[in-house]
């Protein structure tokens, strides 16, 4: 019991620096994923229309890309080592379920890194302009494939695909199959049992050979339904964040520019706002798919995110969407507690219900905050596309004219809010996804306190690491701002 208390205390300390590290990484990562879409859209416009301002904007944005890519790579190393060093018990998963996705991610990362350098260094080097644009397209594909692979590991942590009926044996209310069984359930449970006394069990070399083969199909992570849904949802979120951030920069320039330069900046603004709007219109569908996967495979997280009471209840919209029945009754945590006894590990089942219940007060407001932010972004997107229709634009002009501005200026101001909303939605969504799985690292199989390192994690150590993470966040962000200011110097005079 004392050992578990010690493990929990250490894991909780480690969790704080991991959370900060992941968010710092995500801050830079969204640029790596989202910025190629905006930069390529601007360069496309520049090549097609022989537009010098678009070309200049694309080139300057790619400088930001350079800094954020470097900061993303550094913080990626931090997250990678956080996984193998702080949460060293996850090496059991890295040597099995995560291996294929992590290994194949390298090829995507290599492609990305080679072509990002080619892209940044070969501006206006080719007489046939599309060659340079294609370099950027390869970067875009590489960064997205890279995201797909990394999310493959995360998807397995949420929905451990390939374990057949194992999860339902541990968590009886998850009565669905988690894909074909490609694991040796006995060996996996033995590993889980050995690690329940702490990850130090992995230091015993006899554990490796005595368990034998755990996984027979290394590629199983690619079949995880959560992977594809999460990929679409996450990449879309990154594009929305970066597109609206870029819009807010172009919008700011539009507001500050002399009258003769405003038209040019408005065009740039419309390109990036357009990218964000297109994806904001699609994103609700991906969100819906993510919700369905969560309902099907992580019912406790679903209950906590939707804010059901302990006794469960009805929700007409969810009832229609998920069951086609507005009065469908969703069983609550109390019902799940009554099923705990049927588990092969009642303690684990109980911890799952209690864990979800304990985080409900955190993830419910975050979840609905994300939904509301998404709805507002959807509305901005509709207003943006409506402004291209003569009749609708006249209506919009009349409405926003009440506050003394035209539609374009309104959209510019909206872009400032949109950037903040998109950032909030992304951060909140990821919090719901990770916190909602509490206390599991791999849902139903390995709790987070079983994978924390046996090495000492002291409050001083955690404070130092967090200080370092924040310093990187501050210096990387300052770098981006300095670059942005430097690149924008004199840009207001460009016609």
């Amino acid at each position, binding site marked *: 019991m004392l050992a578990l208390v010690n493990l929990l205390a250490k894991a909780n300390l480690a969790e704080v620096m991991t959370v900060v590290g992941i968010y710092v990484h995500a801050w830079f990562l969204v640029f790596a994923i989202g910025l190629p879409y905006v930069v390529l859209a601007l360069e496309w416009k520049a090549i097609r229309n022989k537009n010098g301002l678009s070309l200049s904007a694309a080139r300057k944005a790619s*400088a930001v890309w*350079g*800094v954020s*890519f*470097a*900061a993303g*790579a*550094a913080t*990626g*190393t*931090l997250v*990678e*080592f956080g996984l*193998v*060093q702080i949460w*060293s*018990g996850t*090496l*059991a998963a*890295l*040597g*099995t379920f995560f*291996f294929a996705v*992590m*290994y194949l991610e*390298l090829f995507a*990362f290599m492609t990305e*890194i*080679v072509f*990002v*350098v*080619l892209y940044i*260094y*070969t*501006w*206006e*080097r080719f007489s046939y302009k599309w060659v340079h644009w294609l370099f950027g397209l390869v970067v875009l594909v590489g960064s997205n494939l890279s995201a797909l692979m990394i999310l493959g590991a995360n998807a397995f942590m949420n929905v451990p695909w390939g374990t057949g009926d194992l999860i339902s044996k541990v968590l009886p209310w998850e009565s669905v199959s988690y894909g074909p069984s490609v694991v040796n359930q006995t*060996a996996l449970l033995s590993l889980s049992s050995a690690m329940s006394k702490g990850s*130090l069990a*992995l*230091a015993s*070399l006899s554990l*490796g050979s005595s*368990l*034998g*083969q755990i*996984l027979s199909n*290394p590629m199983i992570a690619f079949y995880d339904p959560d992977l594809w849904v999460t990929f679409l949802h996450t990449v879309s979120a990154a594009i929305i964040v970066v597109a609206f951030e870029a819009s807010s920069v172009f919008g700011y320039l539009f507001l500050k520019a002399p009258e003769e330069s405003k038209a040019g900046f408005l065009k740039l603004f419309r390109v990036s706002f357009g990218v964000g709007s297109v994806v904001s219109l699609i994103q609700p569908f991906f969100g819906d798919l993510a919700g369905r996967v969560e309902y099907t495979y992580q019912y406790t997280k679903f209950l906590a995110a939707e804010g059901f009471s302990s006794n469960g209840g009805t929700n007409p919209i969810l009832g229609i969407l998920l069951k086609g029945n507005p009065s469908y009754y969703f069983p609550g945590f109390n019902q799940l507690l009554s099923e705990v006894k049927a588990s092969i590990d009642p303690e684990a089942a109980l911890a799952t219900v209690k864990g979800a219940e304990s985080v409900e007060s955190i993830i419910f407001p975050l979840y609905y905050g994300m939904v509301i932010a998404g709805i507002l972004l959807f509305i901005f997107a509709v207003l943006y596309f409506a402004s291209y229709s003569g009749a609708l634009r006249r209506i919009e002009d009349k409405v926003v004219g009440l506050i003394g501005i035209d539609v374009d200026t309104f959209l510019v101001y909206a872009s400032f809010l949109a950037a903040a909303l998109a950032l909030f939605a992304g951060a909140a969504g990821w919090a719901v996804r990770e916190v909602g799985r509490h206390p599991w690292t791999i849902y139903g199989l390995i709790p987070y306190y079983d994978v924390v*390192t*046996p*090495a000492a994690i002291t409050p001083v150590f955690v404070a130092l*690491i967090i200080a*370092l993470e924040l310093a*990187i966040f501050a*210096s990387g962000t*300052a*770098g981006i701002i*300095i*670059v942005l200011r*430097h690149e924008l110097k004199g840009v207001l005079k460009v016609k």
Partner: protein
Amino acid sequence: MLITSVWIGFLMLGITIVSHIFLVSLVLGLAFMAPILEYLSYRRKDEKFEALAKSALKYLAISELAAGVWATWFTVALAGFWPQLTFIATTVLFYPLTIAITGVMIGIPFMAIYWYTWGAVSRRIHLLIGVVMAGGALLVPTGFNMIFSFLDDPVGLKRALAGNGWAVFQNPLYPDFTIHRISAAISMAAMVFAAVYAIKAHRDHDRIHEWASEIGLYIGLPALLIASITGVIYAFLLDKYSPYVASAVLGPLSFSSVATYFRLYPAFVGFMVIISGIWVSAMFNGLHKAFDRSKEISSFILLAFSLVGVPYGEVLNDLPRYPYMVIQGVSGIPASNFINHWMYISPVFAYAAMIIGTALMAVFSYMIYTVLVSKTPGKSGEGISSGLTAA
């Protein structure tokens, strides 16, 4: 099947380590050179130094990107093929690895900031950014070299597993090996720099290139001297604390006489030839002022041997351990004890890695040529020549 997995796992680890060490040595050396050159520019009010610093930074940026790929690959190979070894390493070497990761986290962002803030902030602040970058780069080998010292002599294993993570710092191989690695890296980068500019000086008859080559030698030769002295000391230390490795590499020169799987003495002689070649060609270039045909040949030798020296040395450092993974005096813990038993990893993964890795290096070399040697238009795409000539 197990033997195949062990060998492939060992090979994968070896390829990724050697490739990574080759690139990070360039990174470390150039991360030192760039701020030093910028400082000289600041002190002497001579913009030629600044142009040189910018050239060093261009090499640095590209080397770092490729090194990052190999570092990630190395980690995944470790975790995939050797999960329990990685677990033990991350537990026992917790503090050294934390130092190294801290270095990575400082070094990479500051490299980008250093690059992009050139001319955008005051020179003092920019120089400070460069110093932080170099400091970050220095922390990386300071931490990671403990891994290699530990594999040759696992000092502090039990104490670290019991909770005293600092015990590993009592490893007698570590201080000398770390200084050796760092000085070798600085020497390698500076010598490559010196050789490239000497070759260009001969072809372009450009005094600025001649002068740039001399600067490379001023930095490279002292570093080479330190690397050579610590290298000799390292051989003696290996003989004392890791006789299995010493016997495999030093052969008849070793005081120990242990039967080893590999007998690498001929390869060690080859290594001595390479190091001697670097010394001779560097000294010749330093003393022979005329940029004629003989100096061009000497520069090519210097370039080739400087590029080959570090990875060659790394092969000699790692291969002798086989079939053991961790050496304990005259024998060790077999690598097969650490191999991943939980999942069969198809050799296809390893072959694909080797093919794609080779392709990467080809594209990388092309980039080096395109970006740095040939004249590329654009602000950040200026070739070395254009940067220096402008200065």
